[in-house]
């Protein structure tokens, strides 16, 4: 494996799976993953958002004993399906994009009811749209029950809407604020509280119907704020169609392109996103009107993205890479979901709507590092007869340092050697 291939598989991919066939041309391999259809095949038996919401509705009618949940089994199925996808995908760059955008549009099961729809959100709103237009992705997210529930828009009502007047209900700004701040233009656009309020009015009525046969997104005329609104100086009329127009306009805003470019470059280049790389990606987004495939491919062509080992692996990245490197048989494979809980990044549980941090200092608390070490040691204990040197060479190739190689060679057991590999500075990075 040459250095560029090793780098491509770690920086843009999820770490090489043991014996994974090496691409002849790493750049072409990455580009192909963006251009080809998503090879992921999720079981048609996995719950849809409608399934999850149906179960949630029935659960809400019952008085369940403590620590019992009807929704959890559905959620567990989705965690299993998504973790299996991470460990076995043949399109790891595309998978990384899926998780990047899922984190950009964070929903978290720390919020009530969200475990009914977090998995479906990934499969229905995020995954099909990661190589389409950003406007399409944004609209799919903003109409998904998971986001409408997580950021409380489902219960927002215009003060002058019929329901607002009759039931004295009002605005909830949560989704509008986070959509401006986190999902689209960012504070750099200079919006004011008035803009947030106006956008919240625009989004009134964007709700979830739990009662119908197949629960899901519903635009409620009865809670929609009538009249025109002004967002960032631009006027939008009433109705769902103008909400769609507002989102489309925000999606194509230059400040949005800049914000997305910064986050993409931070994820794929370095914590301190180099300004010229950000400018390049923002330019691609502008020139293609937010084509995420074009932006993803442009990332691959950034010279700065080929500086090895510039990014610390998050706990999820680390666990996925280590498990892929060992590729243990199913009966020895520890659960990735449990691993991520141990390591401090359980799936779909980000504390806040801004998602998991994408900068090393957030992940290098002393106890967090100790957990990485202890988890690595536990994993290495399952590795049986794997030759540590062969695992290291297959996973890192020329990225493996002589120092780590020597430390592994001098280790007292295979288990110790693999622990040293997984905790080494180079394996901790991508």
């Amino acid at each position, binding site marked *: 494996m040459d250095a560029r291939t090793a780098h491509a598989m770690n920086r843009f991919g999820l770490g090489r799976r043991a014996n994974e066939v090496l691409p002849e041309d790493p750049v072409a391999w990455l580009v192909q993953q963006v251009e080809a259809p998503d090879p992921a095949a999720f079981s048609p038996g996995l719950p849809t958002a409608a399934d999850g919401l149906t179960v949630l509705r029935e659960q809400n009618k019952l008085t369940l004993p403590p620590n019992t949940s009807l929704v959890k089994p559905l959620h567990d199925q989705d965690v299993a399906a998504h973790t299996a996808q991470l460990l076995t995908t043949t399109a790891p760059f595309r998978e990384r994009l899926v998780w990047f955008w899922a984190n950009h549009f964070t929903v978290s099961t720390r919020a009530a009811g969200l475990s009914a729809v977090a998995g479906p959100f990934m499969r229905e709103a995020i995954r099909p749209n990661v190589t389409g237009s950003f406007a399409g992705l944004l609209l799919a997210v903003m109409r998904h029950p998971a986001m409408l529930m997580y950021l409380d828009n489902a219960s927002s009502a215009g003060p002058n809407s019929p329901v607002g007047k009759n039931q004295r209900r009002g605005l909830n700004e949560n989704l509008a604020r986070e959509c401006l701040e986190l999902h689209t233009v960012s504070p750099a656009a200079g919006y004011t509280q008035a803009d947030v309020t106006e956008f919240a009015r625009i989004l009134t009525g964007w709700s979830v119907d739990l009662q119908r046969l197949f629960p899901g997104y519903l635009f409620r005329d009865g809670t929609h704020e009538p009249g025109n609104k002004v967002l960032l100086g631009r006027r939008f009329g009433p109705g769902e169609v103008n909400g769609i127009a507002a989102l489309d306009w925000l999606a194509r805003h230059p400040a949005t392109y800049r914000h997305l470019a910064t986050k993409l470059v931070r994820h794929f280049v370095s914590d301190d996103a180099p300004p010229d790389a950000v400018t390049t990606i923002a330019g691609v987004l502008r020139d293609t009107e937010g084509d995420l495939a074009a932006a993803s491919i442009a990332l691959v062509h950034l010279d700065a993205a080929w500086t090895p080992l510039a990014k610390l692996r998050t706990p999820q990245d680390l666990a996925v890479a280590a498990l892929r490197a060992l590729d243990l048989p199913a009966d020895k494979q520890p659960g990735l979901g449990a691993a991520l809980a141990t390591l401090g990044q359980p799936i779909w549980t980000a504390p806040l709507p801004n998602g998991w941090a994408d900068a090393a200092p957030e992940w*290098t608390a002393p106890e967090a590092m*100790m957990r990485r070490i202890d988890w690595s040691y536990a994993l290495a204990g*399952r590795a049986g007869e794997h030759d540590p040197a062969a695992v290291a060479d297959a996973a890192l190739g020329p990225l493996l340092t002589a120092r780590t190689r020597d430390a592994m060679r001098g*280790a007292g*057991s295979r288990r110790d050697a693999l622990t040293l590999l997984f905790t*080494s500075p180079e394996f901790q990075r991508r």
Partner: protein
Amino acid sequence: MITRRSALLGLSAAWSLGGRASLALAAAPTDRRLVVVLLRGALDGMAAVSPYGDPDLLGLRPGLAGTEPGRSGGVLDLGGFFGLHPALAGLHGMYAAGEMLAVRAVAGPYRSRSHFDAQDYLESGAETRLSSGWLNRAVGALPGRTGALAVGVQIPLLLRGPAEVGSYAPQDQPAPSPDLYARIADLAHDDALLGPAVMEGMRDRGFSGATLAGMEAKPGGRNAFAALAAAAGRLMAAPDGPRVAALEVGGWDTHAAQAQRLQGPLRGLDAGLVALRDGMGGAWAQTAVLVMTEFGRTARVNGTGGTDHGTAGVAFVLGGAVAGGRMLGTWPGLAADKLHEGRDLAPTADLRTVAAGLLTDHLGVPPAALGAVFPGGVAGMGGLVRA
């Protein structure tokens, strides 16, 4: 897989083997128990059992020779000339009770100084790597169905093979040894991001600033090996429990600061062997334990206060069935012309003969079957267990 709670609480001695149907072992052909403890990483035999009477010891090992018996921190005397490391007080108590013996200058039949190769050969019981371990083949050579148990997350090569083997592992994973933590910290040391975080994390875990350099384990800290050994003892004490078990424990690869770094692992080993005895209860009288490592370490101290990979080392045999209170084997001496390749303690006994002696005289493996256990055959060392 034995469920942890039922096993630990002693609620059920039923245990299933390798995912197959649960086997009742009420008709086990023997009441004798054999436990093999693998010390992975190469225990320094001369640190565990110091030949303090050897005139060449001090010259070879300034700073690592230990202190003579009877003085503060001195070795625990084994009948003159040899003394146990002071961290092995429990073992010394067994020696005094006639339940422990040490075999000096012992080594496997191979001369590899690679940990991984040597461990494979040690467990294979051969000079090459085999697909099964000698303890598994020994279980297969016993009449009837004798239960064997691997205590730990995985089944070591020693116990792998055609004979059925159960495994037991607690849910709490053992933590890395202090030595491994030290190596990880060393590897990360120059990394501006990870180095300080790992050091701080270890301090937070109770490695005091004073002991960080030597990475001595925190006294009274959790001892995963002792917990495993105690559980193994309780499992084996059951009338229908396993008769053969293997445990492993690491932390022995002391290339630097050995005087400090060996304290914790030796204390842990000692506590574990005592816990095994206590867990066995009355079954201890029918038990023999073999403690072995892949090779010894260099006779000389190296430049970093440690020792490097060597050849002959020490093995311990303990248990209520053992004819202990003695030292076995021949001491080759530490004179320059006696050292193997001018650097290592020379082997005078084949570790397989110790194992073979226990298999035949203790466990009841027919001597004729030894050829299948150790390819090429070896003669068992006699007199290890009480008649």
